[in-house]
Structures are given as C-alpha cells and as structure tokens.
C-alpha cells in the first residue's frame, strides 16, 4: 500500500513537503523500518489493528467533549495508527530549539512582570503587552521559588517547505494534551508492540516524572510532601477526561473551584473530613477565571480570594496567573531580536512569519494582503478564532479591514505556510494530510533547566489539503515517535518515589458524586428489574385479557408509578388499558424525572465526575453501559426493549463486581456503598409497599409475591430456604429481617451504618444523629413480626400495619440521606453573588 502513496507523492507535484517521501521519491531513512512493517502488514491486518486501537481507546474511556456536539458530550478520541516519526538528528535540533525557546519565554515572562526593561529598550512594543487582557497587573512583581516562572509549556510545530520545523503556537497558560499523549502511546504499545521495539522508539514517561518532581519540590514552605491539587473547570470541560486521568496518574487530588475555599489567606480543600490546606495548584482553569474577586467577576470556575493567597505566598499556582501573555502571537515577530539580546544566541526554531498591526508599516502590509494571510487576535478567545484570508468574501475582507483599522494593536497577520504532510490511515487508505506536532516541555527544577518530552501529540487535518487540526474541527491524533537511544539520566531530585499516590483525601463534592453514583446505580437496577417483571407479565398474560383486566399486571404497573414517582401514571385507567406508550416513555425519556433514562444518565454523569476514583476497568464498563443506553434510547417498541434491559442488568452487575474488586477500601468506597445500600433499602420498601398493601385473591397474591422475590433476586433463596409454597410471612421474613440475605432491609440498614462509620465525623460522645436514625430503623425491622404485620385491617380491608411500617422506614431513610447530605456535602452547595459600590452620584 505504501507504494501507491509514494508514487502519488512524487507524481502529483503536491505543494507540500512530505514527511515520508524524500525529493527523489524514496523513503526517508527514519521512516524506512516503519514503512516496510506497514507494507508487511497489508490492508487487512492494518484495518484490524486500527479497530484494535479504536477499541483500546474506547475501552479506556478516552474521550473529548465537544460543546453542542450532536453525538452528546463525550466524543471518542481518534487515533491514527500511523504515527508521526522524528529521526534522531532531526529531533536533536528540535529539542535544543524548544529548550532555548522555553528559556527565552521564561526570561520574557520575568521581565514583563518584573522590571519591564525589554519594553523600555524598545525590544518589545509597549502596546503589545499592556493591551493584552492577560497582562495581569495584579501579578506584577510575582515570584516563584527558583528562577523559573514558566513551569510547563507546549509549542505547536509543523515542518515548513524549507524542511525546518516552525513554531505555530505557544501554549503557556494551561497547556493540554499530555494525558491524551500518554493514552495514545499506551494504545500503540498494545497494538503495535513489535514496531515500537524495532524502531527504538524513545519512552515518554520521564516527562511525567519530571513534572511531578518539579511540582513536589516547588512550594514556599519547603515541605517534604506538599498537597498538590489539580484544578479543573469540571466534567463539562472539553478535556475533562485528561484532567481525571492525569490527576489520578500523578497522584494529585482532582478538584473544581467549588471544592476549594480561601480562609485566613490560605487555600483549603473541602473534604468529608474537614478542610485540608493546599500548597500547590496545577490549574486547567484559564488565568482570568481563577478568582472572580480580582479578575472576571462572571467566573464560577475559580476560587474567591485565590489572588490574595498567592500574594501571601501561601499557595503556588502553576503555571502562574498571567503566563498567558506569552501566547500572544504578536510576540513572535520580536523573538529573534529578544533572543539575541537576552541569550546572545540566534533563535533556533523559526516562528511563522508574523506581522503585528500595532506598527504602521506592518499594518499596511497586512491590510494590503488580507486575502492571503491568516488573521489572528493577539488574545485568543472562543468568539475570536483565527480567520483564513482565502476563505473570506469581499464584504468580510472589508469588515475585517475596518476592525483592524479601529484597533490595529489587537491583530496580527501570519503567513499561510504550506506545511508538510504525513500519511494518515483513513477509510482503509493512506492519505497525505497536513499535521501539527504539539511538544511538551517542563521545568526540570533539579537541573535548573527544561526537559522536553521525546514525543508528543501530533494531529492531522480531517480534510485533505486543509490545515485545521484542532480537536474541535475533528482533527485526528497521532502518536509521535522519536527514534534513537535513550540519553543517560541526569540527576534526580529528592522526591524519587515513582509517581506515588496522593493521601486519599476525599473532596466533599466528589463524595457527593460517589454517594449519588451508588444511589443511581441501585435505582437503575431496581427499576429495570421491576420493568422486566412487568414485561414478563404483560407478554405471558392470557391473550384475551386486556391489560387492565390482569390484576397482577395492574398492581405491578401501579407500583412502577409509585417507585418512579411519575404520578398519575398507571393510576390513570386509560393508561392502564394501553400501557405501551407510558412504559416506553418511562424507559427512554431521559428528560422525564423518575424515568429509567433519567436515572441511568444521572448514574453516568456522576460516574464521569469521579472517574479518577474508579479503576480503569470500571470506566470500560461505564462506557459499555453508555453504549447500551444509546441502543435502548432508540427503541420505539415495547417488545424490542427486553433484550437491552437484560444487557443493562448484566453490565451494571459487572460494574458492581468491578467496584468490589478494584476500588480500594478508603472513604470513596464507603460513601459509594452508603449510597448504594440506602437506595436499595428505599426502593425495596417502596416496591413491597406497592405490591403488598392491598390483599388480592390467593392466585394473584402468589404471582405478586413471586415477582417481588424475582425483583429482589431472592426467588431461588426462598425456594431453597423454605421449600414450600410462597406465602407472605415467609417472604417478609426473607426480605425484611433475614440478616444473612443481602437483599433484606435489615442487611441493607446494617451496611449503611457500617460504611458510614469509617468516615464519621465526631459530634462528641455517643451515637451520631445519623447512627441514631439508622439504629431506630434497624430495631423497628428486627423487632417486627411478619405475621402481625400481614394482618388485614377490618374496616379498610388493607394491610394498614404493613403500610405504616414501610412508610416509617422510607421516611427514616429519607431523613438519613438528608443528614448525610448536611454533614458531608452541604458546604459544597454554596452560592455567591457579587456586590459592588453603586455609581458615584455627584
């Protein structure tokens, strides 16, 4: 297959240089081994490996969120099986160049927030800095321990027509992608182990180790083991997968702004065991969103008072706020001179030719050449993305000209370069696509320098001949291989423990998510089991019987309404007569409160929010649950949902099994299970109450009891234990008081209590309020007499005692849930408002 690619490249007279093909139509040396391996593989094998890669990533739950994407929130991450490859010599130049650039940018940063000599000496135009919204005046004179302010940095590079790598973007605020890079490598290593070995592909793990070392040694108090928190905007963010992945991999606590609070000038993490002091924050929240008091007042992603804690040197924020000033593309035009001036060296890696419109001559050039340039703002926002001159109509050009002339200093023009192509495997064919390589550089504090990851994240354009590689545009990622020998390790800092874990603290919001994960998992399972009983009765009933003439079915349907709180539901006779539509709605309509869909989605949402707490295999299961739910959602007929419900149950049971198997027995495990058992007891009581209060004739009663046992997975146990026909007091015995039956209320109440004990917060002597509530319920259950409870009240004709009994247990459980909420999670629900002085009125 590679031959057609090669011949096409040489025949086509493409305007692009190709990474693989040299000018004579041959294969470049560093690609030769890979090309021949690919050739040996052939299409069929490569197709199947491509599928393996896809599976691997999907199963690992690697996703990328796209706001407003029709496919829902989590779009699977795409990885091209053909990597980007750099030869040893080529890489040495890139590596040196990147270290130089990181060093240079660090100098510039220190100058901008320090003496600003570069501006006074005319090397950096004043307007370029002072007009930039990320020139944060609050950060003036900011310092970090050591000489490095820029701790981690990414540059996007592509190869120009001259064969050199050019810098396209600098990412200095909160560079992303290092987590995806790692996942890409993991997937490639699994699927192409021999190719990685044969090619002597360099390992990328040292980058992560260096980042961890640097962060662990970087704090004001010179602590041995500082508490490092990874600040994420939350599960709605496009790269949340990576936040969860990196934080759990690096042993940092994943937090959102809501999990942190500033008190006494320190930053604290709100955990279920109280406030814990934070020393270092690695942020993925944009600079101006970090503290609404001092920056953007509309931000709800930040930590109020953070800036003051920074001033107090009580916390370090990495990268420091204000670093984004370096992302300013206008700076590129001035870097060569600054480099000569500051480092006395020539700038090694050229930037794309850039004209900053704040200068008269440059502005004129840009205005004269608008149709041929890329126009960017000096400050990148979602509303103002790069504009490609050739794509613009005459009117758009005029409008742009007008905008530039009004505020020239806000714009740059950049040359549209024909960057090189690499082969991408697309729909079973090798196609030449433009690619961009994102590099990762981290401060190596132990060696007072910078370390460059030998590898990175490459992305290729989704369309041929177009240069759009961002994930939003559907760009496809590539693993990046740097070939050659591993250099010998330089000195290693004092924290040499290999990426050791955090201290198991559980932020309150995470605890809340885990509690609800348990509750929704159990709720989902219970609703599905009830639905299965309904479907069984519906299809097995006497064919001549209308649904509303089947007493057992009627009772089951009405219980479903009770359990899901979807009144009037099957209390309505018309729906009872034709239950299909209502049932479908209760299954698939996720927008309907109480439906199975809503419960499932809440389960998935809470799971996604705590994915850093769940093992890798648990994520895989959650992903298959998502897939099954998507199938189920498309079902429009009742008889087609049965199979999906069965699948879901199996997957949810696998989820439980894996949590038992893989979650460590720490607070997160306890909180999750407290939620689980609480919900199980509640749903079980509601179902029994729905089915048993009104006595029916013997046959119907027995059918209902059998369904009840089925729903509670206790039919076999019952038969085994009682070896008799099913009767009410036996069933109550088994489902209420039998402490050995995990489905009994007694068992479940005991387990709520047991799981809450390790995380209990002392309220002084004796039992806590929650424990008292649980103990009361347990006592009530254990002292109950099934025969006594089953008695039918003469005046009402119902089992009034049983009714009261269930109502009491259910309300006790409701109160317990509220108490748990107040005790462990309540302080996460703070809302705040902004107050300011009114206008002066003189």
């Amino acid at each position: 297959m590679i031959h057609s690619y090669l011949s096409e490249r040489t025949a086509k007279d493409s305007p692009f240089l190709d990474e693989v093909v040299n000018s004579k139509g041959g294969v470049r040396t560093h690609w030769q081994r890979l090309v021949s391996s690919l050739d040996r593989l052939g299409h069929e094998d490569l197709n199947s490996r491509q599928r393996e890669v896809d599976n691997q990533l999907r199963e690992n739950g690697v996703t990328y969120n796209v706001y407003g994407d029709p496919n829902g929130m989590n779009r699977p991450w795409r990885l091209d099986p053909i990597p980007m490859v750099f030869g040893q010599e080529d890489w040495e130049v890139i590596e040196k160049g990147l270290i130089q650039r990181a060093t240079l940018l660090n100098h510039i940063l220190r100058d901008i927030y320090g003496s600003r000599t570069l501006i006074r000496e005319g090397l950096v135009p004043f307007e370029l800095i002072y007009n930039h919204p990320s020139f944060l005046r609050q950060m003036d004179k900011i310092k970090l321990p050591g000489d490095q302010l820029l701790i981690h940095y990414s540059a996007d590079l592509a190869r120009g027509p001259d064969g050199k790598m050019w810098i396209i973007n600098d990412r200095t605020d909160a560079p992303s992608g290092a987590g995806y890079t790692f996942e890409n490598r993991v997937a490639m290593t699994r699927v192409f182990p021999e190719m990685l070995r044969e090619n002597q592909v360099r390992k990328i793990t040292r980058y992560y180790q260096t980042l961890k070392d640097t962060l662990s040694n970087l704090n004001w108090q010179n602590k041995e083991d500082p508490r490092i928190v990874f600040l994420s905007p939350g599960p709605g963010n496009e790269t949340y997968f990576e936040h969860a992945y990196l934080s759990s991999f690096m042993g940092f606590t994943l937090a959102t702004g809501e999990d942190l609070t500033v008190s006494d000038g320190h930053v604290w993490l709100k955990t279920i065991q109280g406030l814990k002091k934070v020393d270092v924050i690695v942020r993925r929240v944009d600079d101006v969103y970090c503290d609404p008091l001092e920056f953007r007042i509309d931000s709800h992603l930040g930590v109020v008072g953070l800036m003051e804690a920074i001033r107090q040197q009580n916390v370090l924020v990495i990268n420091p706020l204000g670093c984004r000033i370096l992302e300013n593309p206008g700076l590129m035009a001035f870097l060569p001179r600054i480099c000569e001036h500051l480092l006395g060296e020539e700038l090694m890696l050229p930037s794309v030719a850039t004209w900053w419109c704040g200068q008269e001559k440059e502005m004129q050039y840009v205005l004269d050449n608008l149709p041929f340039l890329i126009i960017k703002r000096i400050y990148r926002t979602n509303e103002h993305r790069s504009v490609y001159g050739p794509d613009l109509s005459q009117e758009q050009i005029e409008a742009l000209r007008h905008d530039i002339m009004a505020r020239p200093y806000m714009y740059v023009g950049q040359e549209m370069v024909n960057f090189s192509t690499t082969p991408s495997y697309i729909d079973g064919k090798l196609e030449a696509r433009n690619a961009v390589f994102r590099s990762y550089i981290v401060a190596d504090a132990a060696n007072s320098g910078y370390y460059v990851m030998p590898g990175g994240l490459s992305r290729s354009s989704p369309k041929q001949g177009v240069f759009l590689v961002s994930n939003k545009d559907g760009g496809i990622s590539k693993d990046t291989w740097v070939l050659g020998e591993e250099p010998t390790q330089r000195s290693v800092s004092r924290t040499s423990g290999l990426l050791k874990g955090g201290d198991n603290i559980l932020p309150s919001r995470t605890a809340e998510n885990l509690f609800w994960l348990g509750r929704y998992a159990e709720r989902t399972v219970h609703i599905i089991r009830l639905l299965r009983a309904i479907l069984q009765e519906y299809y097995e009933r006497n064919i001549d019987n209308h649904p509303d003439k089947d007493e057992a079915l009627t009772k089951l349907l009405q219980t479903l309404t009770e359990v899901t709180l979807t009144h009037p539901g099957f209390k309505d006779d018309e729906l009872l007569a034709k239950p299909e539509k209502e049932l479908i709605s209760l299954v698939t309509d996720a927008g309907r409160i109480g439906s199975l869909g809503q419960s499932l989605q809440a389960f998935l949402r809470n799971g996604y929010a705590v994915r850093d707490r769940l093992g890798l295999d648990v994520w895989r299961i959650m992903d298959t649950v998502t897939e099954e739910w998507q199938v189920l959602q498309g079902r429009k007929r009742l008889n087609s949902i049965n199979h999906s419900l069965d699948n879901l149950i199996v997957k949810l049971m696998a989820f439980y099994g894996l949590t038992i198997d893989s979650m460590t027995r720490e607070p997160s495990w306890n909180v999750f299970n407290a939620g689980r058992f609480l919900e199980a007891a509640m749903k079980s009581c509601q179902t029994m109450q729905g089915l048993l209060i009104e006595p029916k004739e013997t046959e119907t009663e027995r059918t209902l009891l059998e369904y009840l046992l089925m729903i509670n997975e206790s039919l076999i146990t019952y038969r085994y234990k009682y070896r008799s026909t099913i009767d009410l007091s036996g069933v109550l015995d088994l489902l209420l008081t039998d402490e050995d039956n995990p489905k009994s209320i007694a068992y479940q109440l005991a387990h709520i209590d047991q799981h809450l004990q390790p995380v209990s917060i002392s309220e002084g002597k004796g039992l806590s309020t929650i424990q008292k509530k649980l103990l009361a319920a347990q006592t009530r259950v254990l002292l109950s007499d099934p025969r006594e409870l089953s008695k039918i009240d003469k005046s009402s004709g119902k089992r009034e005692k049983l009714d009261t009994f269930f109502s009491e247990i259910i309300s006790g459980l409701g109160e317990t849930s509220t108490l748990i909420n107040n005790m462990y999670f309540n302080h996460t629900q703070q809302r705040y408002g902004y107050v300011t002085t009114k206008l002066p009125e003189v």
Partner: protein
Amino acid sequence: MRYHVVHETRYVYDSPASLCHNIIVQEPKNQEFQQVESYRYIIDPKPHFAADRVDFFENAFTYFAVQKTHQELIVTSESTVKLSLPRWAGVDARSTPPWEEVAQWLKSVKALNDTRQFYLESPHVYPISGLVEYAQTSFTPGRPILEAAIDLNTRIFDDFEFTSGFTDISTPLGEVFASKKGVCQDFAHFGLACLRSIGLSARYVSGYIETLPPPGQPKLQGADASHAWIALFVPDLGWVELDATNNLIATDQHVRVAVGRDFSDVVPLKGIVYSGGDQEMIVKVDVNRFPETA
C-alpha cells in the same frame, strides 16, 4: 483647605451570609498638594483576615474576609486631608504645548510606561465611532493641549445631561454618547475615551467633593457622595485634573482617593458574598470642611 471625610457603606443581606471576601479602595493618596493627615477604616463585623496592599497604579487597597455568619456588613472609612493648590492651578492654558506634540512624545519609548499606559483602551473605555470627531472639535490642529482639554470638558458639561439612575456599571459607552445622559462616572469615561482616541494619556480619578447646600440652607449629613473625574497628562504640569460634571479644573476642593484606567481599577468597595439572597446597599458620604484657621 482641610476636609474630614466619612464614607460608610452598609450591605444588608436578605438571607445571612456565611462568608465574604472584599476589596476596599478608599484610602486618600498622599500627593504634593494633598496631605493625608489621618485615615482609618472600620469593618463590622470584625474581619478574620485583612491585608493592606498597594496595587499596580500605586493605590492603597485592603483585602478582607469575614468568615462567620452575618446579616449585615458595614465598612466605614474616615480620613482627614489637607489640600493645597496643585501646580496646574492658575497656569495659563495657552502656554501648554500643542497636543500633537504630546501625543507624538507619548508614542516614543522616552515616555515612561506608567504614563503611556493611560492612552490605551481599558474595560470601560474603548474606541467607538464618532469619538475622534467629537474630540477633534476641541483638539484643532496645533491647539495648546490644556486649552483644548478645558474646551472639551466644557462641551461635555454643556452637551450631556446629568441624570441619576439612567445608567449603571454595565451601560456601554456608546449608549452614554448617544443619549448624552449619565452621571460623573459616565462623563469621566467619555472624556477619557475622547482623549485616548487622539493618543493622549488620561486616567480616571476617584474621590470626593463637597456638595454645598443652596444658600441659606443647612448642610445635610450623609448627603455627599463619592465622585469621579479625570486627569490628563500635560508635560511639566503632570496629571491635570478636569471635572466635567462641574465644568471645572479640580484644585483644592477635590479629595483624591485612587487613580486607574477606569472605574474597574478603583471600585471603592467590591466583594463576593456567600449568601442565598439579594442584598441592599446604602452608602453615606460626609465631606466636611474644617473652619479656616486664619
């Protein structure tokens, strides 16, 4: 002149607040023509944490946090300030250099960044169409900078109608320009926008002014208010202050608190409060002149 200024801000919350973080910018600045004899602030309830700081524009500010449940927050600042006539008082405006010369000089690296930063746009002051034309009616070619600025100041006073409650913090400049209505802050922002549109450095000044009662009537306590005006950079004279709301050059009746690019840099009191409900704010300002001691 000596003044005693009391500035009280009271927030009353609908539902109790558990925590608040605030920043106060109310401390008058020591300057050549303004000596701050005393300044103090009182926060009630007493804050658990407070830090006095100086910002990028060299204004004093205080960060504080109240970390317990409270229903009301009162911040009172009190100062005694002695004012003398600044350098620009009584200067012949016609003797100042042509405005283009100043604009040209500001563009060069010879001018300090601290001076140059005030010809740039800022959150509330930015280019809108019609500004340059409005400014150039006063700033005719070769006209002495201060003469032109005084003319602009008078035109804003004449063209704009002081209307309380018509605008708020979020009212864009274009709307103020179109309606020609607003309060001192709007006039200050508009004046700044005009001056910056032609390349001059001008900054926002927050402070106080004494409001005199109509002749024969007693002065009401708490009837004064915080005030805002602008300062234009004029070589040799420094930052010459112009008050478009009152059509005058500020001299020894304006107590200066803080300077910035616009209101957003020097908000007298702002904060984030953790409370479920809304809040009401009551501001009282008293500016009292000490009797002249011969």
